[in-house]
């Protein structure tokens, strides 16, 4: 993965001139193994598409262009794009990382936060049909807020709990969206 080395200490002028924004001079960093992996995966996806397309059943009724044609086309394009991009990345080409108001381009990548959030989200997905949406999403909310650096765990859990129950009431009771509430909440709001 890219080494998140801090930028040189030179003070950066805060407002880039327009042409700088346009050209976004990307500092040369070491070869980006992460993107190389992603483009190689794209190449493999293309190969899979072409092979998989050959396995799609063609019903006898279809005459000229059946269900295999477009997958072959997309597969071939994917192989070309993935291959060329992998080569370019291998030669040191690098895309500008997407900017955002809350993204600090000089910050070191926090894989810990990403990992915890992904796990919390996965856990909530698996728990949703067991303990209901409000409870599982509250736990997720608490863990995510904690992983992103909010102090303590009580306040995030409390906030998440209140918001999720209110949202659940609005969407389920007022708008009729299907969302399991969990035994307690279903019982408590059965009269609504």
């Amino acid at each position, binding site marked *: 993965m890219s080494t998140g080395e801090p930028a040189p200490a030179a003070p950066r002028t805060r407002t880039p001139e327009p042409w700088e924004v346009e050209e976004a001079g990307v500092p040369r960093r070491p070869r980006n193994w992460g993107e190389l992996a992603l483009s190689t995966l794209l190449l493999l996806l293309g190969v899979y598409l072409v092979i998989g397309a050959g396995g799609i059943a063609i019903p006898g009724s279809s005459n000229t*262009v059946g269900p295999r044609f477009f997958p072959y086309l997309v597969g071939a394009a994917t192989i070309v794009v993935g291959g060329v991009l992998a080569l370019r990345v291998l030669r040191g080409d690098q895309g500008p990382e997407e900017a955002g108001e809350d*993204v600090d*381009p000089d910050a070191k990548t926090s894989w810990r936060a990403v990992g915890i959030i992904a796990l919390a989200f996965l856990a909530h997905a698996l728990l*949703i049909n067991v303990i209901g949406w409000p409870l599982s999403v509250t736990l*997720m909310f608490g863990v995510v807020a904690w992983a992103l650096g909010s102090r303590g765990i009580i306040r995030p859990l409390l906030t998440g709990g209140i918001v999720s129950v209110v949202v659940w009431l609005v969407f389920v009771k007022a708008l009729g969206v299907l969302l399991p509430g969990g035994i307690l909440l279903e019982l408590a709001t059965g009269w609504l």
Partner: protein
Amino acid sequence: MDAFFQLAQGFADAVTPINLLFALIGTLLGTAVGVLPGIGPAMTVALLLPITYVLEPTGAFIMFAGIYYGGMYGGSTTSILLNTPGESSSIMTALEGNLMAKAGRGAAALGTAAIGSFVAGTIGTLLLALVAPAVVTLAVAIGPADYFALALLAFVAVSTVLGASPLRGLASLCIGLFLGLVGTDLLTGQQRFTFRIPQLADGIDVVVVAVALFAVGEALHVASRLRHGPVEVMSSSGSFMTREDFRRSWKPWLRGTAFGFPFGALPAGGAEIPTFLSYATERRLSKHDEFGRGAIEGVAGPEAANNAAAAGVLVPLLTLGLPTSATAAILLAAFQGYGIQPGPTLLTTESSLVWTLIASLFIGNTMLLVLNLPLVGVWVKLLKIPRPYLYAGILMFASLGSYAVNADPLDLVLLLVIGLLGFAMRRFGWPVAPAVIGLILGPVAETNLRRALAISDGDVSVLVSSPFSIVVLVVAVLAVVGPPLLRRFRRREAVPA
């Protein structure tokens, strides 16, 4: 004249109390999410797609119209009041807007952005109402081959013209096209790339993909490099626009509109190029030598261009069924959700819906002007939401929207997997919008391609048999070849400026 009559009818349909309420909810919601960093109009409309199952189309589209313009407006508030770079189409507004706010002229900057948005939005919507029927008369005879050419143009335009790296745009497009292939073939009923998972036979839902790429991907990306410390929101105080400010703003508003609308309306839609052009023009024309220290023209022009482009994007969407931005693509999915296929026939078959939508754009735009300046205090509060809570909340709503589609936890697992992909794409500078366009437009392109080839008995020359398709394909080729040449040219130009 007919158009005006129909537009009047649209207004009559749109100003019922319940529809005005939908418009109000839409504009407020749109502005709120536009203000919040990390979510934009595309994701909001995606999250609200499930409500299309409960709401009738008119109400839903009136709300979407409000969200669409509100999102644009909210974005400019953020870029003026937050001292950090945001989405690419509001970077130009941020340049001078930040400086104005810093110099204690925040209120004037917000004012010129709001009125400029209103002016551009109104002119843009008016142009939309005038141009759309004309485009439809031109396009009504187009066949499957022509439509395939148009889809191809949208693909390459969105992938290569927008964004810094055309190749990465195409990579993103390929991902989207693949995701669009998963499921049951529309024409023969065969399963494709479903990995024998029964739920995938219906395809991967647009909501899941869009929310994953926009919301989950963004949340993970921000989490990986979160800007720590308190959020610094600049003061929105100071005196409102003076007479002098108005005098300096009105020409940039009009010029910005003139830049924005055509760029949005051409299938190579997007707000980045016109906002950049508008900024450069105002800078060159300025007599005040104030650029770089907070010139009001530098806020007025790009902001108008941004909004006019947003109106322009609706021309190809409503007349040809061709989305050229991520938000437009999701609006297209909303039409499809109602069983409506946008295309040249939309204006005749769904005439009242389309004109009500256009009328609501006018209404929403006016509501924005009236509501937003008094509500600046609320937006500033929104900007100050602690980031851990903000992103936890975004994930909560992502879960809500995706689970509501099928009530299946598998969708949430898919959401996470595609969200991780979206994170990687952001990290390596692969734009996300082409993937969404590929997902939504891919199946449409395939259907038309196969129809065209079925009519011609497999003869490929059918694809270039009409002047229309030839022109479109030539433009598509130019869209691939042009930008690299242009960039090389601009690099040579820009240095001495």
